[in-house]
């Protein structure tokens, strides 16, 4: 079953007075439970594609359907609801709210979803345990390492059982050991909880972990590699 169906996506924007064609008619289908990387050099359009899949940016043309929701038919508020309930985000940096503890950062997304306090607490602790942050529930982001912060971000992204998690260069600011450990954890979540992960990356280690690599160049798919199981 396709969780993402993007067809002929085009997107351009202006950088100063210069028009940049970020995506030039990209089409991709992503199945449920995939662990996929959008790879390519800077400016290849991977982050733009990820933003469009996540509904935080809109294409100039083309259609995008995520978990049977056609973005063309949806208002901004409906897209916000979809992001809240069906899509998890992990960004490269600035992932967490600095004044909230790890547990509160995870709980906050559930608070926005209207989950009851006791359930929020229970789920947040359980997911933090799952990502290897036992006992660090009350630490603020400034008291956590970069890798631990990204783990909290992953925990927040998957705590509500989203249809898909979009991770924009999640290992870019981490050393290789921490990055590997994070990827191990995400792969475990993918396998155990059947969460679909789509990364944007130019990190070879992420590409090694990915089961499928969609290589982008100048806003188009250059190569779509599905690794053997």
């Amino acid at each position, binding site marked *: 079953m396709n969780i993402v169906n993007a067809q002929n996506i085009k997107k351009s924007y202006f950088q100063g007075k210069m028009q940049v064609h970020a995506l030039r008619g990209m089409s991709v289908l992503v199945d449920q439970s995939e662990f996929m990387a959008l790879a390519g050099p800077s400016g290849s359009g991977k*982050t733009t594609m990820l*933003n469009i899949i*996540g509904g*935080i*940016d809109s294409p100039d043309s083309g259609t995008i359907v995520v978990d049977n929701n056609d973005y063309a038919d949806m208002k901004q*508020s409906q897209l*916000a*609801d*979809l*992001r*809240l*309930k069906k*899509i998890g*985000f992990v*960004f490269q940096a*600035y*992932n967490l*709210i*600095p*004044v*909230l503890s790890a547990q*509160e950062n995870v*709980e*906050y*997304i559930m*608070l*926005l979803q209207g989950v009851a306090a006791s359930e929020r607490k229970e789920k947040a602790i359980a997911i933090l345990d799952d990502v290897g942050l036992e006992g660090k529930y009350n630490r603020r982001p400034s008291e956590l390492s970069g890798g631990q912060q990204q783990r909290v971000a992953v925990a*927040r992204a998957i705590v509500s059982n989203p249809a898909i998690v979009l991770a924009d260069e999640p290992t870019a600011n981490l050393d290789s050991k921490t990055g590997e450990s994070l990827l191990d954890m995400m792969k475990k979540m993918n396998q155990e909880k059947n969460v679909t992960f789509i990364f944007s990356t130019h990190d070879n280690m992420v590409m090694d972990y990915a089961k499928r690599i969609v290589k982008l160049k100048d806003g188009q798919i250059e190569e779509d590699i599905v690794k053997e199981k």
Partner: protein
Amino acid sequence: MYFELAWRNIWRNSRRTLVIITAVVIGVWSMVFLGAFSRGMLNNMLENGKSVLIGDIQIHHKNYREDPSIDKSMEQAEIIRHLLKNNLSKNTLWTERIKVSAYVSNARHSTGVTLVGIDPVKEKEISFLGKSIVNGNYLEPNDKRGVLVGKALLEKFDTKIGKKLILMTRSKSGKVVSKAFRIRGVFKAQMESTEKSYLFITMHGARNLLNIEEGISEISIKIFDDQNVDIVAKMLKNNIDEKLYSVETWKDLLPMLEAYVRIFDGFMYIWYVVVFIAMGFGIVNTSLMAVFERVREFGLLRALGMKPWRVIASVLTESTFTLTVGIVAGNCLGIISVFLLKENGLDLALFGKGAEFFGMSRIIYPVLTLTDVISVNSVIFFLGIIVSLYPAIRAAQITPVEAMRE
């Protein structure tokens, strides 16, 4: 958690938050304290104005105010007395007066004055006179030949207690009548003009001088609850023959003062708004800085699915906390300042003459009313929230893509 988040957010930059809270505190303090001081000045002016033989309500012969002579006295006062006795509450005081224009002289000086025949016992409770005797004695009810003289007139006439003054006026029959009265006491009023223009004798003394048995010039009523003045006046108007008598409140009798009270209330609101505008710029500026510092964070929250209205609500919650802390502290400071001056007041000795010109006492006691406190707090709180809307809307307009480009 929303409130916890807002509270923690405002202390992310504690110095900046303290600066804006200080601005709110100073604004609220100045509004509460200076407002109470101004209210004290106004009340003082009002009380001084009313205490100079005005009271809250007066009843006269219909044409007395056009021609304040003995001809326009109220002859059937018994009916009105009966009405007042039966309808006014125990807290309401009233007194009768005979008021005529007169001429006073001694061996060296003479001048025109308003001669007032009073019931010494009742007058003491109602007008300034009871608390104003600075020399000699107050009048006894049966004193037919005693007179109270203002300090300024006494000095002008170069006379003293125990000496005689000749009072001359026109009787009801049109004849000029005169009698000698002995100075029993000296009164000091807020304004020198009051000391020079009024002389007080007893009701008996006035009747004796004017050769009348009945008739009074006015009835002055003092009501201790301002709210009831209009209600009592209406009741009296409904029960008194309007063809014969007129019922007027202090607002009718002192239209300038009434206008001043209205202007003052308007001025207070204008002043609140002016103080707020200065404070408002600080609030907007600080909130905007706090928003622009957190562009990435707002972008993240929007990306996670937070709706714009919730972003607005979160920024407004932060403003509400900042305003609330400032307002509470400002009120405490203002109330403490008022409390400290409640006992001894503020001495305006430096502006003594000017204050007197405006009918104010030299010492002003601040008056804090619940209405003024509510007005101050409402103005700051609601305008504070309104001006915070701008940074809140700006925060809600931040898109995740825009934020990521930061």
